[in-house]
């Protein structure tokens, strides 16, 4: 049964002021500090005082014991709309969706969507050990390989079933590194060759070193407001053409080989009124390259099982035939905890408003950013995507 889209459009609601707080591999600062810097960046970018922000959607793994409520007092905010989005890699899309509806309904005028995490010496182990109850009971005690082991199982199955090779994953990683070298804030600063990729040490087979993101500290943020607010503030903005969100789709799959996007992709393009071929720049959620390949399929750029051929027949650099993860993505820019889910949206916003600087894709008008998150046990449960359209260039 195909569901008829009955959803209201996001007409008149825009995203603006992309902010990235440059990442650091380790930080002695708290998540609060990183989130504060992102908020400061938003205010400076918008020319407003942070007390003008009346909506706040926060995502982080490391603010404990504080939730978003505690952050309001800590940072001197007094919002009339508040959301804590503990959804990891899909928190960016979810924050954007919720914020857009809140502004549309008049519950808030300017919503700051902020994700920030710190990375102290034992932060990563703690996050992995306490990630979920199922992880605590049924995956962490089996080698404590964290997400690497879980995605290794998914990658191995995908390779066996669809004939993907390590070289295919490597091609994406090499292209993203090339993109990252143009992004002054990317953590990875040295070129990567396919040979380097193939010879890297194993982490959880078939995954090797360059298949894995580097955990780090950092923050990403953007604002959601009405178009007239953005115009009054003189801000470049992007319209929200369409969004989707899904949790725990395809429970029947013995091993995950598709995400929730596959269930909602029809609605994504129907609501936007475009086809996949009209997308100029794509930011997938790249915690591992196999997940990016899954998104090429599930977001309609090729059919299921055809991503290996798709990868072999395209180039993914900024000036390539399929510009992809133009800031270097998480694989080469770093994964700042929950900010990994905002990274693609922020870069997409820069691209479609023509403000990506050294990573700018020529004539980029329509961009897609997707999110993926929460390996609760054996699979990533949450998926989302947004299509942004930039007009004012």
């Amino acid at each position: 049964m195909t569901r008829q889209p009955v959803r209201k459009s996001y007409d008149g609601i825009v995203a603006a002021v992309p902010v990235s707080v440059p990442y650091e591999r380790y930080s002695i600062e708290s998540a609060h500090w990183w989130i504060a810097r992102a908020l400061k960046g938003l205010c400076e970018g918008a020319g407003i005082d942070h007390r003008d922000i009346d909506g706040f959607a926060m995502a982080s793994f490391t603010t404990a014991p504080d939730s978003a409520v505690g952050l309001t007092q800590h940072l001197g905010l007094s919002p009339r709309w508040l959301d804590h989005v503990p959804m990891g890699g899909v928190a960016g899309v979810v924050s954007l969706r919720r914020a857009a509806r809140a502004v549309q309904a008049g519950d808030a005028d300017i919503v700051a969507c902020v994700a920030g995490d710190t990375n102290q010496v034992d932060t990563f182990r703690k996050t992995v050990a306490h990630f979920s109850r199922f992880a605590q009971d049924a995956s962490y005690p089996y080698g404590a390989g964290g997400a690497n082991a879980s995605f290794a199982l998914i990658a191995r199955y995908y390779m066996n079933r669809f004939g993907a090779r390590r070289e295919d994953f490597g091609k994406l990683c090499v292209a993203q590194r090339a993109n990252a070298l143009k992004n002054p804030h990317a953590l990875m600063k040295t070129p990567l060759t396919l040979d380097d990729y193939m010879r890297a040490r194993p982490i959880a087979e078939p995954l090797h070193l360059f298949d894995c993101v580097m955990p780090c500290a950092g923050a990403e943020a953007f604002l959601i407001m009405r178009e007239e607010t953005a115009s009054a503030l003189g801000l470049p903005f992007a319209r929200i053409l369409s969004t989707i969100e899904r949790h725990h789709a395809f429970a029947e799959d013995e091993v995950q080989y598709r995400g929730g996007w596959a269930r909602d992709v029809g609605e994504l393009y129907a609501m936007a009124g475009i086809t996949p071929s009209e997308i100029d720049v794509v930011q997938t959620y790249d915690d591992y390259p196999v997940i990016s390949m899954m998104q090429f399929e599930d977001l309609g750029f090729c059919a299921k099982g055809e991503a290996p051929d798709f990868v072999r027949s395209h180039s993914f650099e900024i000036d390539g035939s399929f510009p992809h993860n133009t800031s270097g993505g998480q694989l080469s820019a770093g994964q700042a905890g929950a900010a990994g889910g905002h990274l693609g949206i922020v870069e997409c916003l820069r691209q479609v408003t023509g403000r990506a600087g050294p990573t700018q894709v020529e004539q980029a008008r329509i961009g897609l950013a997707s999110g993926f998150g929460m390996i609760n046990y054996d699979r990533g449960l949450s998926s989302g995507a947004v299509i942004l359209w930039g007009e004012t260039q």
Partner: protein
Amino acid sequence: MTKLPGPEAPKAPPAGAPPLPPANRSRTAHGLTRAAAEGRFALQRCPACARFTYPPRDACPKCLCPALEFVDAPEGGLLVSSTTIHASVDPYFREHLPWRQGLVTADCGPPIIVHLHRDCVEGERVRLSLQLDKAGQPVVFARPATETPNMQDDPAWQEMTADPRSRRILITNGRHPAAPALARALLQAGAASVDVGLSDPDEAFDGGALLRATDNVTPVALDLTDARSVAALAAAIGAEVDILINTADHVRPVHLFERDAPRCLMETMDATVAATAHLAQAFGPAMMARGAAGPNSAVAWVNILSAYALGGHPVAVALAARRAAPRRHTGSQRLYRSRGRRMVPARTPAEDIAVAAFACGR
């Protein structure tokens, strides 16, 4: 009146103790612990819709019935994916890398992340079992469905089991009625050798001839009532004992009002309570230190307990009292677990029958 201290909070393992696998589990997950301890493979099943579920949940994902029960489940499954982990965030696994992990579709339905035997192959069938790991926590292990050569030698499997194969074993009191049968069974199961403690190795007793006639059984001088004797044996073989089976015993049924009761009680206490303490002092530290030392780890300390440890028949009052000692020792398994060694309480019907016979005879 002296106030007894309350239960101690769990302490961090002492410095130098070998690391253990992650031990945190939800309360519900401990349904698996019971099955693992009993050697059964059990998963939760919904009493309303009969569907098996895993990982442990508090409600059925199909019908939301909130009363899931742990029941025996089919042991078969299909290995649908696998990985070999080379980098781990946990200190225990870091010492045991590389480590295989698999994803199995159980015949009864749910996907199960497992410790994977090295001979398992993707796309082939596996046999699932619940094991207690070095932290005493339940884990699912997958072995090939059919026997492979030297299957027991898998390093991950050895971490999950207290297999007597190739182990040196000490039975502390050879005069225990179960000792000859225990020694033979352990050797049949592949034990390298069995040392049997005897206070006077030359004295004849029931079963003594049988013990001496068994290959690879060595009688050793051990007077459990004498700290120096226990220490001397520990100095000689303590570093090599992998499995210690404590059969310290002294059956003298006596009623408290009988004339000889005090002396009889003291003898019993000496032969059992003091014996357990001497053994713990002499053999405990070395075995604990080897708790997670790879293939050379000390694998078990078994206290043979009687059901009389749990209560007291009038004539078995001394038994009940003195049983409290090894029982308490067994109860201190949290401490032992902190060093990765298994503490196995075993209750012997044979002994209980012997005690019961004495009681009935009066």
